[in-house]
């Protein structure tokens, strides 16, 4: 038995038929070919499958594809604007905050969400917001520094990467 799913991912509309058990993360990867969202643990620990669903940042292994019917989804690939990196991505690169890059989907989206919720987050708050993502390469400090470097830049709207009044 297959179910229709109509979903907007990174601004593009998709219609697919999926099995009821298909997870959102598998839907993105296997049905839409968006491989920027990774599978790291299968048990909702590592955060490599973070996406934004109707404005909420969540682990795509905790949602069924059918639950995303009618939703707006943003994945790591969707953060590029006209081929330019999102400020969070640029900041992470500048701080050498990723090396193997497998955790990028989790780290970038968790960092972005942290900044959107609390634009001037302190060290502890940033670390707390990264609690749900694993990075095995960098010891987290460069990630924290990257987020905090953006927190220091006050007039930047991180939702779309454009400069705006806060």
């Amino acid at each position: 038995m297959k179910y229709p799913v109509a979903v907007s991912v990174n601004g593009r509309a998709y219609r697919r038929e999926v099995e009821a058990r298909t997870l959102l993360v598998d839907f993105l990867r296997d049905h839409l070919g968006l491989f920027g969202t990774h599978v790291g643990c299968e048990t909702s620990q590592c955060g490599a499958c973070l996406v934004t669903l109707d404005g909420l940042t969540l682990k795509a292994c905790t949602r069924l594809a059918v639950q995303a019917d009618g939703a707006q989804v943003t994945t790591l690939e969707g953060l590029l604007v006209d081929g330019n990196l999102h400020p969070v991505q640029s900041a992470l690169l500048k701080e050498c905050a990723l090396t193997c890059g497998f955790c990028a989907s989790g780290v970038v989206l968790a960092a972005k969400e942290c900044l959107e919720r609390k634009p001037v987050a302190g060290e502890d708050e940033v670390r707390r917001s990264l609690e749900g993502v694993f990075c095995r390469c960098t010891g987290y400090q460069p990630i924290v520094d990257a987020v905090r470097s953006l927190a220091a830049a006050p007039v930047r709207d991180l939702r779309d990467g454009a400069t705006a009044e806060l």
Partner: protein
Amino acid sequence: MSTNARIEGESTGLEEGPRLVSGCGLFIADLRPPEVLHVHLVRSLEAHARIRSIETPAASASPGVVGVFTHTELAFVCDPLEWIGPLPPNTRCPPRPALAQWEARFAGEPLAAVVAESVAEARKAAEGLEVNLEPLPGILEPESALLQRVPCVHVSLGGNVAYQFVVSGGDTEEGFRKADRVLTHRIARPRYHPAPLETRGVVARWLESEKRLEVWSSTESPHFLRAQLAGAMRLPQSAVRVFTPDVGGAFGSKLGATPEELVVCAIARIVAPRPVQWIETREESLAFSTQARATSGELKVGVREDGRLLSISYDGIDDVGAYLPIVPGHNPSAEGTLLCGAYQIPAARMAVTAVFTNNPPATSCHGAGACGAGYIIERAMDLVAAALELDCVEVRRLNLFRELPATTVTRARYDSGDFSRLVDRAVERSQYAVLRHETSSRRRKGELVGLGVALLVGIGAQGPSRETGGPAWEAATVHVSADGSAEVFTGGLACGEGHETVLARIAAHALGVKADAVRVGRADTQTMRAGVGSFGGRSIATTGSAVLGAARALERRLRGVAAGILCTSVEYVDRDGADFVSGSRRVSYRDLCLLAHGASQLEPGSSPLLEETFVFEPQGSTHPISIHVAQVVIDSETGEVSVERCCNVRDLGRELDPALVEAQVRGGIALGIELALLAGSPRGDDGQPLQRTFMERPVSRAQGVPRFDISSLPTPTTLNPLGAKGLGDTVTMAAFASVMNAVVDALRPLGVLHVDPPATPEKIWRIVRSCRGTGGA
């Protein structure tokens, strides 16, 4: 040997960074060749069992299933994996079947493979497989492997010893006799899985018309894998091509060849032309794949009353699991040479017996064997300090090699560095005296606070090959096209360390062009025909030196061509930026490359192919050094250890890109803390893994680690033209050992002299409770 100019530059971040940070990396699970079939492996649920039968009809009839394979079917197309080339001395490596034939030797050994149109269908079908196992008594504790009349993990070997080595120098027994005190302690480290965020995976395709096998694998050693797979698949190596996509971390767990890779290749040959893919689940990764060895043994230290060590010995047993992992650079005795660490000790002896058990196969993860010895000597230093009531830094200072180069009594040669300066810097930067004072005053208030120090000497790039037992060299080819664009190919490529960036910069520097004119080719055994791999701390030191050699040779050739064009001799050709000049005459780099491709017409005998290959063979092993100071506090109610401060000073030789090095150093410290406090791979009494997901396997998280104070005092090594010693896992092990020392220091007021890692809350809580209980507190 030194380069003419600086290669170090302003860090421009990772070359591969934009690709990875925007989700455009290509990892093994992202490969989707058309018509691909998926493999699900059915594994043994018993640690040791006779395989009575595997009934496949029900599974074969399941929807979407293309085939179900056991040893019988695969035996038509492949043999077991066997060690190709000379085995290290006193080592036994039984063949490792793709799928177990008569006997399952560890819980998790693959028994059957279900191949289906989708992963879900393969998994579903596997439920219908009837596996009939007869449990057999097994060896789960390495100590019992050596007893009389115990089961043999491999009956054909007639015993359970995998290998033995003894590394010794000086007369240890005499040292113990002369010593004022002889301290002994049993110390142990558990097996664990390093848990890179990306699990393993492989894709294979058989091209029948060409009789060729194409393999994509998330491996650290593509050429080694090719050799092993070709051997087992009864193919010439020239018929096997291995590609490595982006690798999401490895830490030693993706070295060598494994049965899963062989299963996928064998099935690909059977189901050709359809390609076949297997992606390891997290459970398979944590519970069943190659782990780090467990080790335990008796440490003995002979010391004078003034704190000078006279003799040290370690007699240990390592648990390699059910099969000796088939990995390049297998050289466990290298560990023994480092038993003296940074210290001038007149006599030392390390004897290790490695045994087969019914646990998953285990090898060196986090450090090419150096980790064990470094931890042992640094625990020994603290045991001495405690026994003599000396400060742990003072004991270390007393015994340090005053000057390098020096050779330890176990024949490790340290070519460069300054131990005293590193200790001074660490003491100064960590404000060690202040921390000591603070620790005492907090202790008086009843807090369990500890301070730990570890001075680790590791192995970066091993060499030379004739001494290391395995290949220590690396090869690189640099090719320049007619338009001036350059490509670098090497056998040792990145597993997430930023090699593309640094290797491109090395080549660009030697060629005299900008780094963005150089691309680093993906690891592919067809474009780079020979290579060794990316593991230990060898990549920049050895692979980088090979790239430098090839690029320099090519630059010399370009100069020769330029001399012809400029009507001068080669010694009068200079570079101005990328251009070649002689007096007022000039030819641009681009024009030169174009002309050089027609050079055969310009100059008789010259080749139009602008390409040079260089093999770098290190003449000795490099020894990166790291000193780490850690402060911990223990919650006596819960047993939880928190790391409050970390200060690290390193000498990794020349650092070509300090920002990338720092990223790895910080990552290494976080892993070291994890090894000390969290990581172990416990198994039940029946050999069943107790950690199958990240819910049971704790890892370092953002809130679990403090900010790290890191700094560098580099002294270039003379063992390679780049002066790089490599990173390896020296920093990880320094952090690990210092945190363990700090935990013991925190518990010393309770009379504790040693705690084996990991210092989990439960373990520490029990220790605190039993000490306070018996102490009447």
